């Protein structure tokens, strides 16, 4: 008797459901807000001169005409009024009517139109999150206070990636990270986790237990080999919803000093070309799904290079560049492409690196969190968070400091 959630199936005769996107046109200022929302931040523009917060995004302060800056803001709010939109000329919303929306007074000052969680009504207190909608743009979603959020709200599900009942591919499940990711996806209720097993074939050791769980399917998969990839995907029975690319090739070394060209080339083959192969093969599969997502685990060294892991950092930088393009391509299909950045991991590849290091289990839970919160960009652990903050603040300075 199985205890796993049922796997979604597809009627092979039924006409495929066309997927639409929410309206996508935005001002440049709104794109700046979206870029921050992608990081899970709730920001508003604040005037440099008078300190007034403003919304919707503007290009000058409406109180004193001062310049505006983006700042993190308190996300509490009170619901003012509500409606259920029952008629829309937009194809995306027509698929999801009725659509609840409302207006809130933000604790930060301005009022805003919001997507309204079904449990909220006028005068209720709410928490407003800036989430990315199906078009990939920031939208404000008013939710009840954390803890009592009913995640089955069908509107909220449009902004996140549900895992329960889904089929998940983990590109490299043999590594410490990959094993934890398989375990976490299984625990989160995935109907099937396809665990990519990179060659050469060898004893599973500690992974034996996880990889033998019901609902986990081991699959020979080498993302440096096109044939292996095609074969593996052809053996995934039914639709594929989520791809998690955990493959990486971490080796220390510089460029002119201590650089191993064979290692460097292999790092590129896994990180960069591997991403391209995986994206090409799985992108079309994900595009047909209601909640398709591609999660890429990426080193924070990708941001600016690393003197100690030059080849690896370069390969990861190439991977990041490819991922940006892939994200753009997938936006039209409503597929979320998410990046999870990490610093050194507490695994066999970072034995000589001093702490802080991120436990593989923590990476796995960060991936689950990114999916269930619908967050496009996540930095897991102190090193990655520090790297991202410094890179966003002053990339030139960070490049010098990182590679002194």
């Amino acid at each position, binding site marked *: 008797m199985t205890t796993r959630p049922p796997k979604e199936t597809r009627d092979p005769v039924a006409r495929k459901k066309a997927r639409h996107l929410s309206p996508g046109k935005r*001002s440049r200022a709104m794109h700046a807000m979206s870029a921050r929302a992608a990081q899970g931040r709730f920001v508003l523009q604040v005037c440099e001169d008078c300190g007034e917060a403003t919304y919707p995004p503007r290009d000058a302060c409406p109180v004193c005409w001062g310049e505006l800056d983006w700042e993190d803001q308190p996300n509490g709010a009170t619901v003012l009024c509500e409606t259920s939109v029952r008629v829309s000329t937009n194809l995306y919303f027509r698929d999801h009517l009725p659509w609840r929306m409302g*207006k809130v007074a933000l604790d930060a000052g301005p009022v805003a139109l919001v997507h309204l969680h079904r449990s909220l009504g006028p005068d209720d207190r709410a928490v407003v999150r800036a989430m990315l909608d199906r078009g990939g743009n920031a939208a404000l979603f008013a939710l009840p206070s954390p803890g009592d959020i009913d995640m089955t709200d069908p509107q909220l599900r449009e902004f996140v990636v549900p895992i329960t009942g889904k089929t998940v591919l983990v590109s490299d499940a043999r590594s410490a990270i990959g094993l934890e990711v398989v375990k976490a996806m299984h625990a989160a209720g995935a109907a099937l986790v396809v665990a990519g097993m990179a060659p050469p074939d060898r004893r599973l050791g500690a992974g034996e237990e996880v990889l033998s769980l019901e609902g986990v399917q081991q699959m020979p998969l080498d993302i440096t080999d096109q044939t292996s990839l095609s074969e593996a995907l052809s053996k995934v029975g039914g639709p594929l919803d989520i791809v998690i690319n955990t493959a990486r090739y971490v080796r220390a070394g510089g460029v002119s000093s201590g650089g191993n060209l064979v290692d460097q080339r292999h790092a590129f083959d896994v990180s960069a070309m591997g991403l391209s192969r995986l994206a090409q093969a799985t992108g079309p599969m994900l595009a047909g799904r209601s909640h398709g997502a591609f999660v890429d685990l990426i080193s924070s060294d990708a941001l600016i290079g690393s003197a100690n892991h030059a080849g690896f950092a370069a390969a990861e930088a190439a991977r990041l560049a490819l991922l940006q393009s892939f994200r753009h391509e997938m936006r039209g299909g409503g597929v979320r492409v998410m990046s999870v950045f990490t610093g050194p991991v507490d695994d066999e590849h970072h034995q000589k690196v001093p702490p802080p290091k991120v436990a593989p289990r923590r990476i796995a839970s960060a991936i689950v969190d990114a999916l269930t919160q619908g967050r496009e960009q996540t930095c897991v652990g102190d090193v990655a968070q520090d790297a991202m903050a410094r890179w966003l603040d002053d990339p030139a300075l960070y490049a010098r400091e990182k590679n002194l």
Partner: protein
Amino acid sequence: MSRPQAPYDGVAVCAPVTAPYVRFSNESAHWWAGAALRQLREDAGLAPADIDGFCFASFTAGPDTAVGMAQHLGLTPRWLDHLPTGGASGVMALRRAARAVQCGDAELVVCLAADTNAIDSFRHGLANFSRFSQDAVYPYGFGGPNATFALITDAYMRAYDVTREDFGKLCVAQRANAGSNPLALQRKPLTMDAYMGARPIADPVHLFDCVMPCAGAEAFIVTTPEIAASRGLPAANVLATIERHNAFPDDPVQLRGGWEMDIDSFWQASGITPADVDCLQVYDDYPVIVAMQIEDLGFCPKGAVADFIRTTSFTIDGDLPLNTNGGQLSAGQAGAAGGFQNMTEGLRQILRQPLGEQVRDAQIALVSGFGLVNYDRGVCTGAAALRAQR
């Protein structure tokens, strides 16, 4: 205290015309503008050379503006204005044209609004309306103005204890008024039961709270009393006008409009009181805005509109004849011309040239405009009091 408004001496408003509306049209806004001018040619004997001032409003004339329209229609004006203010454009056109004529910048100004409505116009029009709408309204369900006004209506009903039946009474009365207007698109009597039982569009807005978009054009002439007389055109005086944009930006929800800021000086300048008004022609994209204007224009105290509606009759033979052509809710909303039909209807009633039934002894019309939901509220408001020259 601002300076008192100078009187509109030496100004005559005349020749209201309406190009009969149709639900859908494949013709352009230019064609509809031409149709209104043809009507002026018939009614006022006007030729292109007679027009030395031109004020134009439209949403669908793009890429042309008043400039392109002047050349398209063969005009050589010495005074030109383009109003992008939709529902407030009729009052605003009157104000601008009146001062131009009064000061001698022009002698005969044609104020004209024209819009077409193809099968797909509504959707296209919505998609590119304003930057704030793109960024912060459409992504939230794409309900268009229905959703925006649903939020206002929801808040307004709860703030002032107004019921759907109250709005229903306004809609039913306007439909009754449309009954005698042969140009109204919806003339079939509306019962309160039908109003209450209509399907929801965006709660609490239901079907008969919404206007029907259509194609059409409206125009009128602002000139000197001498020219109006020489052409044999009955004319009206302008008693007072107001205009206000982006009023009360700190109100979290729009429960009042810009009229409230200036209404005292308006009545003072006009020399009349609300009790002197023979017909009230207000912008009526949704009944909540009608109710708001009844309050903000001073026909009843703020918050007392429910009682006022319940104790007042709004039909042509009633205590306060309201939107006597049926308003946009029954006659149809021809884009920016929707912001002109209150003006042309008000003029028609006091000039005794009604499309349908005449309001008995009508001398004074109050015309009120409301336009442009840039984000979460109508930004532009205006009002004008007109008295027939007799």
